[in-house]
Every structure is written in structure tokens, then in C-alpha cells.
């Protein structure tokens, strides 16, 4: 038994999260993604069969928080985006006021394209919460 079931989000803002995620999922070789709050709450998710949402969200939120907290401890500027690659694919992570946008790509994924799309998604989220972030016009400018 899971102690507390999650309820699907309904508002316009929730629709915006799902739209952002849907855009990321259109990129070739992207296998899935999720939007997770800093407390680990799953706001939107689409993951391949076989990958459970809650554990993935808990780990991704912990990773995002370590990047935030570590930067703060080291007196660095806050992280904006990160990627971590393994032999079979890459996890992309973007930081936003609402939490973290996570994208999973397979080993053939176009890393530059995902990074650019992620920046675009983060700029959209920034815009919904405050000042829009600067966004390169194309992946090549990154």
C-alpha cells in the first residue's frame, strides 16, 4: 500500500506543465520525462513502462536539491540545467521555481537539441512565475 495516492492536476498551470512535457517527448529518442516539485511531488509525468514514477521522482528531486544546496554551500550561482550520461542514455535536469523538469533520453538522443528544448521549457516556467529567462535562438547558439 502506498500511504497517499496522487491526484491528477487540473488547472491551466497544470495543463501548461503537461504541454511542456509533451513538447519534450516529441524529440526523437526521448523516452520520457517528468515535472517534479522540490518536495518530490509529481506534477506531470510520462515515463516508459517499467519505470515507476514515484521512485524516479524521489531520486530526481534529491539530485536537483543536491545541485541547488551544493552550489549554495560552495557559494556558486544556482544551477540552471544539468545532464548525466551513462552507457545507455542520458538524464537531463532543469531547475525552475516550481521544481525540476526531468527528461530521459536513450544513447542516440541529440543532447544539444534536448538541452535547448529544456532551456525553452524552463524559460516558459520562469515566465509563469516571474521574469522570463534568456533563451538562445537555436541549439547551435548554446
Amino acid at each position, binding site marked *: 500500500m502506498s500511504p497517499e495516492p496522487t491526484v491528477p*492536476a487540473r488547472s491551466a498551470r497544470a495543463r501548461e*506543465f503537461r504541454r511542456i512535457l509533451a513538447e519534450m517527448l516529441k524529440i526523437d529518442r526521448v523516452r520520457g520525462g517528468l515535472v517534479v516539485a522540490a*518536495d*518530490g511531488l509529481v506534477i506531470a509525468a510520462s515515463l516508459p513502462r517499467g519505470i515507476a514514477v514515484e521512485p*524516479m521522482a524521489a*531520486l530526481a528531486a*534529491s539530485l536537483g536539491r543536491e545541485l541547488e544546496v551544493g552550489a549554495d554551500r560552495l557559494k556558486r550561482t544556482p544551477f540552471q540545467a544539468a545532464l*548525466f550520461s*551513462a552507457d545507455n542514455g542520458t538524464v537531463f535536469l532543469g531547475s525552475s521555481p516550481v521544481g525540476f523538469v526531468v527528461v530521459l533520453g536513450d544513447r542516440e538522443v541529440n543532447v544539444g537539441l534536448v538541452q535547448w528544448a529544456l532551456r525553452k521549457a524552463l524559460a516558459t516556467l520562469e515566465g509563469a512565475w516571474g521574469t522570463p529567462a534568456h533563451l538562445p535562438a537555436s541549439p547551435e547558439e548554446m
Partner: protein
Amino acid sequence: MGFPRLLSRIWDAIASFTRPPNAATLFRRADLYRQEGRFEEAAELVAQGLRLAPNNGVGHLLSAYLHLAFRQIGPAKSEFQSVLQVDPYHPRALLGLAKIALEERDLAACRPFLDKALQYYPDFPEARALQEMVAGWATTVAAPGQQPAYAGPPIHVEKLKPPAGGREFVLTQADGTLVFSQHGDKDAEDLAAHVTQVYRIASATLQRAGLGALRRGIVQAATETSFFRSNDRLILALSFPQDVKIGFGLLETDKLWTNSLRELGMRA
């Protein structure tokens, strides 16, 4: 339907609109807002609800979540503790405190919270995932000044010179032992602790996604871009100014990685 009954129903309907909502209603609405990412509105409703019902566990749990969402760790911790005063085995409050302990790199505090949460709710996927992750960590990342000493082959510092523009170069073992750093002692220990923690959590995330072991990482911030390289035993991190070309950063990190492995007598 008689006129009095109709009048009564109309009166009830009007009253339901004008009567202030009770705490349970406020918390239910707040939780929906929270799940939609509307944290500010949710926080306002939770505050209203807690004014009506100051000892309500659900209210304190929501308050804790919202503090975490706003990255307010001290208040979040205190709210989770309030929940545990009402219900000492509340799994979500225990998980929340475990996550905070993880952020504070206090593994000794983190593990018991996860164990307790899973004691009564063994099928609690988030807690299980974190428990499995920390179970694989041989030791906690040591506090500053208590780092285990590197006991490998001697390192020729001149062969591990970072490239032009490269800074905060650090080499650590997977258990957090600092092998080499460009920095002074205190900064090096902090950096090594962070690099190790990122390596550990990123590795667990990649494994959970079925992608394999961590090999490379790039972390971009407003003023710098950091590159990671790792195998199962060694982690390298190197930072450049933010405007570094990613290709250049990867290339230089690879060169330093190859030199480091050679110096330590390791295979790629």
C-alpha cells in the same frame, strides 16, 4: 415539494456559499492547488486552515511540503516534526525528514527515518528508492576536517594541471575520499563532498531509469559550467567560466581524466 422545504433548501444553498469553509475543506483545496503547482495559493489556504485547526496533522504536513517547495528547509523540518507529534509513524513526515537529512548529508539521521517509514508501510516506493540508494553508500560523506585520507599511489601534481580557464578541479574516490584538488583544504573537502554526493544520486537516478552507470555529467549555472567524468571508483570534476564551449570542456575534461587514470594506475 412544499414551500417551506423549498425555502429551506434555498437557504441552505445560500448559507453554503456564505459560510466560511472549515479547516478540512481548506486543506483539501490547498492540496489540489499544490498538485497543480499553485504553491502560493496553497500556502495561503494552509495558513488559514491552521489558524482554525492548529494541531491538524494534515495541515502541518501540507505546510511542510509547501516550505520544501519554496526551499525553506528549517520551517519544513519543524512542520514535519509537528506531524510526528500527532502520529509518530506518519510515513510522509518520516520521508520528508529523511530527505532533509539527505540534503544535510547526515546519513546517520536519514537511514532511521527511512527504516521507520518502511516498517509500517513496506510498499512505499519513494522511501524504498531512497533506502536502496543510501544502502549502497559504504560510508557517509565525512564532515569537514574528517575526510578519510587518500592512500593510493603518489600523485605527480605537475601532470594533473587543469587547462587554461579550468578551475575547481577535484578528484575523489566513489566513497568520498579526496584524491587531489586544485584548491586549499577546506574548500577542497566541501567540493569533494558535493561532487561525491552528486555522483551518488545521479548514479542511482540513471540506474533507476535503466540507463547504466554514470560516465559523464555537465552542470550549467549562471557563472560556471562544471564537467564530471567517472567510473565505478573515481570521480573527476572540473569547472570553466559559463561561456565555455561544451565541446572544449568535454575534450579538456577527457584529457585530464586520461592523465588522472594514468597517474593513479587505473584502467579507463
